[in-house]
């Protein structure tokens, strides 16, 4: 297998598709990184499930206020125009279709748009948080993920084998190797690393990759 994008580069690529003025929810963990790469001249407005819209970046260490945190329980900051609201109003924003984009991590994504990202099975303590609401709320649900699991198995599949977070909800996947859209129950390849052949990418993908027009080069700066 040839080179792949770092997590930061995947996050950078996803950030390029967020338009100016977009209302955005970033899943906890890796997806939070997308906020760092807002293109110049564009201002996204970030929503967090626990009741803040329009918050700013992390404070300097020691400057945290633990009543001002995001869904991942990390400290954030106020910005001019921030608003607070309660949890039912927060999920009215989510479920009511008011978010433009949600960007989430994934264990598995199926060509049908099904997503599995909350449970690796019956072992351990299950925890779901707001993921199941986000996948059925935001106008556009995108996933950022390594293209394969740590042991090299495909994460883009014909169908998910892990417990589902949502059915037919994901429309775009940004991976370490490619950008893949989900259209009418099929994976449509939009961009791939130039160093990687279509056949190589297909061999790392658990369902057929379709073409619809050309495939652009997936190129990211060092970030």
């Amino acid at each position, binding site marked *: 297998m040839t080179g792949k994008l770092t997590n930061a580069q995947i996050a950078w690529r996803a950030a390029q598709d967020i338009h*100016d003025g977009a209302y955005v929810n970033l899943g906890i963990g890796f997806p939070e990184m997308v906020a760092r790469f807002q293109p110049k001249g564009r201002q996204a407005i970030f929503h967090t499930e626990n009741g803040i819209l329009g918050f700013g970046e992390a404070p300097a260490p020691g400057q945290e206020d633990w009543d001002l945190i995001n869904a991942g329980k990390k400290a954030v900051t106020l910005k001019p*125009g921030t608003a607070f609201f309660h949890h039912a109003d927060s999920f*009215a924003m*989510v479920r009511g279709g008011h978010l433009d984009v949600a960007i989430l991590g994934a264990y598995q994504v199926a060509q049908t748009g099904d997503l599995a990202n909350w449970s690796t099975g019956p072992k351990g303590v299950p925890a779901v948080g707001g993921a199941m609401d986000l996948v059925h709320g935001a106008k556009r649900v995108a996933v950022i993920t390594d293209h394969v699991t740590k042991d090299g198995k495909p994460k883009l599949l014909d169908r998910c084998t892990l417990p589902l977070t949502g059915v037919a909800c994901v429309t775009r996947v940004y991976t370490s190797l490619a950008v893949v859209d989900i259209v009418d129950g099929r994976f449509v390849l939009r961009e791939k690393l130039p160093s990687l052949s279509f056949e190589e990418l297909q061999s790392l993908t658990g369902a057929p990759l379709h073409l619809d027009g050309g495939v652009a080069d997936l190129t990211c700066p060092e970030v």
Partner: protein
Amino acid sequence: MDKRIENLAQAVADIPDGATVMIGGFGGSGAPIELIHALIDRYLATGSPRTLTVINNNAGNGHVGIAAMIEQGMVAKMVCSFPRSADPRVFTEKYLAGEIELELVPQGTLAERIRAGGAGIPAFYTPTGFGTDLAKGKPVAEFDGRSYVQERWLKADFALIKAETGDSLGNLTYRMAARNFAPIMAMAAARTIVQVSHAVAPGGIDPEAVVTPGIFVDAIVEVPNPAQEEDLNRANAHYPEVAA
């Protein structure tokens, strides 16, 4: 991002014929008189928009605001809880003549249907109206031994509301009981247009005091010193003004 719009005419320019429009206000309190009158101006100048469905608690009072929209013939249907007022003649005459349709909804059900529209809840159960004419034909269900009516969400193409202070991101506060339906209508409309008495920069509203977060707002137009429907009616105003 800046949601401010230059003037009232621009603010209402996109509302097409046949649109469903939620209009804030309970009686005169919270009625966005200047937005409504700008819409009437457009109709008188261009013949559009017409055959509107208007959602409001009432159905107009006197000859200004919603009553004036109805009087001019712009409204095909009212969805409301209480189409009576101190001077309901405009609606009453059109209704009795069969020239306007009425969907009568209990007030709490109206509010909850609008809130559901904004919150992505397609249907809910309420005890309100069970066993009455207003629940006829609606699904019923029993929960824990009590009977309930299933009600559907209510959404709109546009909401026209009045707020007290608005920043350019769309965060809003209201003035006393003028708040009423505005926050939920802002949630339930595809495009929410707000006249604010005071426009401020982001940061001009305490984040704790924001009632409607900007995500629910699409356009802001400043209208300092807005008219009160009640005052207009006490002065026997008509819109447009009747030539003397």
